């Protein structure tokens, strides 16, 4: 390892906290999707750092990072399809103007 594992984990935690902040505060649905991609990348950084340095099976971390990427792609595709369908019906991407399911 060229830098200590803890520094990479702190970097991952920072990306995760920034993603949580974005997902909570963005009014634009696409902004929320961007924040979720940020969170998934934080997890991947941790998985790859562990795969490089811990004494457990080294393939497991990288393979799980691959699976996370595949699921992130699936989530992004379905999420963007929902955003486009919603925009066609309601002409808005602001979350507080989308209240179809309220009352």
């Amino acid at each position, binding site marked *: 390892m060229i830098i200590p594992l803890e520094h990479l984990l702190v970097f991952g935690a920072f990306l995760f906290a920034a993603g949580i902040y974005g997902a909570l505060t963005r009014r*634009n649905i*696409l902004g929320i999707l961007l924040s979720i991609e940020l969170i998934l990348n934080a997890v991947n950084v941790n998985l*790859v750092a562990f795969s490089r340095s811990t004494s457990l099976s080294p393939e497991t971390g990288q393979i799980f990072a691959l699976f996370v990427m595949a699921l992130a792609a699936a989530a992004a595709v379905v999420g963007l399809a929902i955003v486009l369908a919603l925009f066609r019906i309601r002409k808005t991407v602001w979350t507080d103007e989308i209240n179809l399911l309220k009352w």
Partner: protein
Amino acid sequence: METLAFLFQWGLYALLAVTAVAAVGVVTLANIFHAALCLVAVLIGVAAVYAALSAGFLAAVQILIYVGAIMTLVIFAIMLTERIATPASGTANRLVFPAALGSLVLFIVLSRLIFSTAWPLRPGGNAPLTAEDLGRALMGPYALPFEVISVVLVAALVGALVIARKDRP
């Protein structure tokens, strides 16, 4: 050799810092298009971190899938739904202060936990994995999750088509 390792180490720290700044840009910039471009910078930075951790295959996959495919889709969706020239007003909701406080507390608690945990480290790190090792693992112990992922991807593809198409029969 010593100076090369030193430069490499501090270059990696600089890369982490730039990526973290771009991540802050993703969640705070008012223009959603600029935020998406910041996310592209974050993804490329993370790919460079993978390469520095000698996970070359993952770095290539990150560039191909995230930067090449997902971000293209996201920017396409932004251009379809947004007037980019006119900056939108009020891009954050009322939760800005509590959410900032909460994520700051989360980050501090996570950092304290990270530094106080005894990780089962192997001194010197593991040998770097090649794409061949990953392929053997995917076809061996992880064959079932690999197949399940392909089913999930097909389901997401069909579901996205059904949701986003225009006319309903």
